[in-house]
Structures are given as structure tokens and as C-alpha cells.
């Protein structure tokens, strides 16, 4: 029997496979038993409801997907009343992805969630603008990340995962800062800035113009980010960015990820997480490797 239980912060995962925030929902439960996942990461929720960006919000490029959903979500109060009730009874780890406009608003969201049972961890989505500092993206500013993560760690005993954006000069620096501030794990990468134009109409293919690029086209970028971060932090990494199948997942694990998340591929094959869980088992079995020996095992 292959054992690939892993620990992410205080959480024990039965396997290292989860889903990327925003690409998954309770609807997948109609297709398979989602308690089979190592963890479930919710769509990002915010304090107030968000109606999201004007459409078109999705466009396919030659080798990936552009999206600009604009964090459409019902707000924390409605989230608690609706989705959370269903999520919490699913027998696996529940990670709520959260975002906010300011550090204090992050605090408010966490406080709301702290009153709720059934949540195992938070994923802090820092890929959005901080209104308190001229709209600079939280995740690109070391000081802000330090303050934010420190604050959150004081507010909760639950596992705190910081989800990094790749759109910056040094992913190592920000990862170190997150670790120093007490983050239990790091997940990366969020989408890469991207754009596409319809040459007939000269309109941007995404109404919001600059969008988030995901899918197979970003895999090499995601991998190098995971690899670089794994060299500088001790906390576990949840790797993502273009993972479609077992082989892609293995690349991330070898590069340094303790767990992997599937995003865009959920839209292609909604069962791909299950395929990957099976595929990883098979690989470990055939290669007679222990899962922990596979993590961060690039052979130079």
C-alpha cells in the first residue's frame, strides 16, 4: 500500500492532490466523491459580495487560458450561509481562500471565519491590489506581506497558506518573508499577467484587458518558481500552474512541491485530480520510491 499522507501546517492530507482556488466548486461533487481529494480549496471569498468583472471574462489563447473573473463571490456572510455548510461536511480538509482590499479587511474576513467550524486552513490570496498603499499588489510588497501574515497568524490557530503571485522580481524574497511571518505553507503560482487581442475588432479578448494567464502555457514558469522557492524555505509548497496529469504533477513534486493543485485542467477533465492521485500511486509503486523522497529531488 502506497502511503502518501502529507502534513501541511496542522493539516494531515490523505494524498497530496488538491484543487486551485477559483477553478472548482461544489458542483464537482455531482461528478465524483470530492472527499477523495487531499484538500479542497474554495473560490476566493471577500468581506463584501463582489459582482465580478464585465464579460468577456474568459478567452482561450494558443496554449492556455486568460481569465478575469474579478473575484465574483457572494461575500463572507453568504458564503458561510450557503457553500460553507455543504463543504464542512465533506470528509477532507477544507481550505478557504480569502482576499481583501486592506490588511484590516483581511482581519475581518478571518474573524468571521474563525467563528465557523469545519475549516482547516486559510489560503491567503495576495494577488490583488491593496487600497491602503496606492493599489500596489499585496503579494509584491515584502513589508505588507510580512504585516499581513503576522496579523493573520495572531488571529488564528488554523493552518495559514500564503498564495504567491509570480508577477514579481523575486519570488524567493517574498516566500522568505511569508515564512518568517509564520506562514505554514506557500502555494504558487497564481496566474501570470497576460493579454490577447482580437485583430478583427481590435478589442481585447478580455473586457478587463489585462487578465490572468493559466494552463499548460505557464507550466515552465510555475515549475521554476516552485523550484526556486523550495531552495529557500522549509515550509511545504503547494505547487500549481498548468498541471494536467500525473507527469505534470511529478515535475512539480520533484521540483520541490509537497502537494499539487489542479486548476485549468478541471475545466478540461473534471476528474483529472482523481487520475493524478491514481497515477502518483502507480508511479511510486513502479519506481519503488517513497513519496517524501520524491519531493525536491532534482537530480543535477
Amino acid at each position, binding site marked *: 500500500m502506497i502511503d502518501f499522507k502529507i502534513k501541511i501546517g496542522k493539516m494531515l492530507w490523505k494524498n497530496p492532490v488538491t484543487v486551485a482556488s477559483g477553478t472548482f466548486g461544489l458542483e464537482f461533487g455531482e*461528478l465524483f466523491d470530492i472527499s477523495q481529494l487531499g484538500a479542497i480549496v474554495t473560490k476566493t471569498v471577500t468581506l463584501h459580495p463582489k459582482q465580478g468583472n464585465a*464579460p*468577456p471574462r474568459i478567452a482561450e489563447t494558443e496554449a492556455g487560458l486568460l481569465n478575469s473573473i474579478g473575484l465574483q463571490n457572494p461575500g463572507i456572510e453568504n458564503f458561510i450561509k450557503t457553500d460553507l455548510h455543504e463543504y464542512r461536511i465533506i470528509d477532507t480538509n477544507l481550505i478557504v481562500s480569502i482576499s481583501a482590499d486592506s490588511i484590516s479587511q483581511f482581519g475581518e474576513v478571518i474573524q468571521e471565519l474563525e467563528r465557523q467550524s469545519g475549516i482547516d486552513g486559510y489560503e491567503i490570496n495576495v494577488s490583488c491590489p491593496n487600497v491602503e498603499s496606492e493599489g500596489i499588489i499585496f503579494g509584491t510588497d515584502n513589508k505588507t506581506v510580512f504585516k499581513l501574515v503576522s496579523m493573520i497568524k495572531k488571529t488564528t490557530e488554523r493552518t495559514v497558506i500564503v498564495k504567491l503571485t509570480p508577477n514579481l522580481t523575486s519570488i524567493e524574497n517574498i516566500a522568505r518573508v511569508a515564512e518568517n511571518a509564520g506562514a505554514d505553507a506557500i502555494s504558487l503560482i497564481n496566474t501570470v499577467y497576460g493579454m490577447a487581442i482580437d485583430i478583427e475588432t481590435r478589442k481585447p479578448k478580455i473586457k478587463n484587458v489585462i487578465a490572468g494567464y493559466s494552463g499548460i502555457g505557464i507550466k515552465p514558469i510555475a515549475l521554476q518558481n516552485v523550484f526556486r522557492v523550495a531552495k529557500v524555505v522549509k515550509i511545504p509548497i503547494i505547487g500549481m500552474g498548468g498541471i494536467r496529469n500525473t507527469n505534470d504533477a511529478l515535475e512539480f513534486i520533484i521540483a520541490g512541491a509537497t502537494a499539487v493543485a489542479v486548476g485549468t485542467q478541471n475545466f478540461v477533465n473534471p476528474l483529472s485530480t482523481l487520475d493524478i492521485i491514481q497515477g502518483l500511486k502507480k508511479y511510486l509503486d513502479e519506481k519503488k520510491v517513497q513519496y517524501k523522497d520524491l519531493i525536491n529531488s532534482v537530480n543535477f
Partner: protein
Amino acid sequence: MFYKVLPIVEKEVINNKYFIITFTNFEMAEQSCPGQFFKLKGLEQEFPILPRPFSVFKKEDSKLSFLIKVVGTATKNLSQLKIEERVALLGPLGNGFQIHNGKKVLIVSGGIGYAPLNFLRDGLNKADNEITFFHGGKNANDVFSKNIRIYTEDGSIGEKGLVTDGVEEFLSQNQIDVVYTCGPENMLRKVKEICEGFKTKLYMSMETVMACGIGSCCGCAIKVEENGKPVYKKVCKDGPVFDGYKIV
């Protein structure tokens, strides 16, 4: 809703723009209602990445057929598949057309918009509706049935002109309870305008680019009026069929 990989069991090439592919699956067929759709992707076809949405065109026992128009790469790839080659299907998805009983209904179809409306007709027939079916296309190649009132822009078959020309005339001469429509944006807008005058019920099947297709990603947003306010709805889950008057 199911995700299954199925072989193509029948394929009919209508002309160089349109083809029909058929799959057999009891559960999927059983659950499919008019107006619902599936996401399809050839199993070996890596790019484009996203499976594409296609309405159920016909259901016969366990058989589900899709009428597909070749417009870009994904549809071209599907058109090249042969019988026995495998396709990944996700569906049935979305909310179909509401079917009333014993009404006088008009179906207004434009181009490939014909696909869901063909299946709808079967449903309406079973519910004892009195159906008039108008279909418009650019030319004879865009016409899939001769049994209905046809308009083509070039007049190569049926009447010359836009299908909406006929709709206006027809509604002014007939008392119609419900209008069902699917087709290009311009046509939908025009149909709505016309129907407003006659105060019919109006069901419209909408299209947007889709990612998940099941309501999880919020990618397929469309602005719809709700309680007098514009809100974003998901075409894949709240639609694709909407109250035509509520589309902003």
C-alpha cells in the same frame, strides 16, 4: 450530469460547414432536456484546451446527437473525427427551455441556433403545443430541414430575407403565447424587439465563452435583469435559456 469518454457511433456530414455526430449513452440521454448542452472534446486533441459547448440536437432512446458548425479549431478538430474515435463528454448541462402545455408557440432559429430548437420541437410536440418554426440562414447551406418556414439572405432557398422579417409579419397576424429563439446576437436582439410589441413570452438561448460549464468558475457571466437590477448570471448554469426580456 456525467463525464464520460464515448466513441462516435454515427456521423453525418451535411455540407462543408455542418456535421452531426451521435453518441450512445443511456444515462446521459435520459437526463437531457431541450436547451441543455454538453461540453465536447476529442480525446486525443490537446489544443485548443477547453472542451466546447454544444446543444443537444436530437435524442432518440439512448442516442444523443449534436449538430455542429465548423467555425474555428475546436469545431474543425471535431469535424475530423471518424466513427469509433473517442470524445470526452460532460453533460447534460444548464437549464433547458421551459415547456408549457397546449400553447401556440413560435420557434425562431438562426443558423446553428437551429440545434437546440430542433430538440425543443420534439419536447413541445409531446406537450401538445401548436408549433410554427421559422428558420433563417445565409444560404441553402444553413438550412437543415425543409419542413419549416425558411428565410435565406441570398434567397437560395425559402424566402429571400431575414427570418425576423417573417416573424414580425407572423406575430401581427397570429396570436402566439410563447416564442423560443436561438441564433446570432443581432437576430436575438431583433426578435426581442418584435416580441416586446406583442407581449409574448420569450425564451432565449444565449452563448458565451465557457470554461467549467457547470457553474464553478463564473467565467460565462451575462448581464441579466433581476428584480429590476442588472446582475451577472452564469450562462452555463442559470442558462443557457433565459427570459429574453431580462437580457441586458
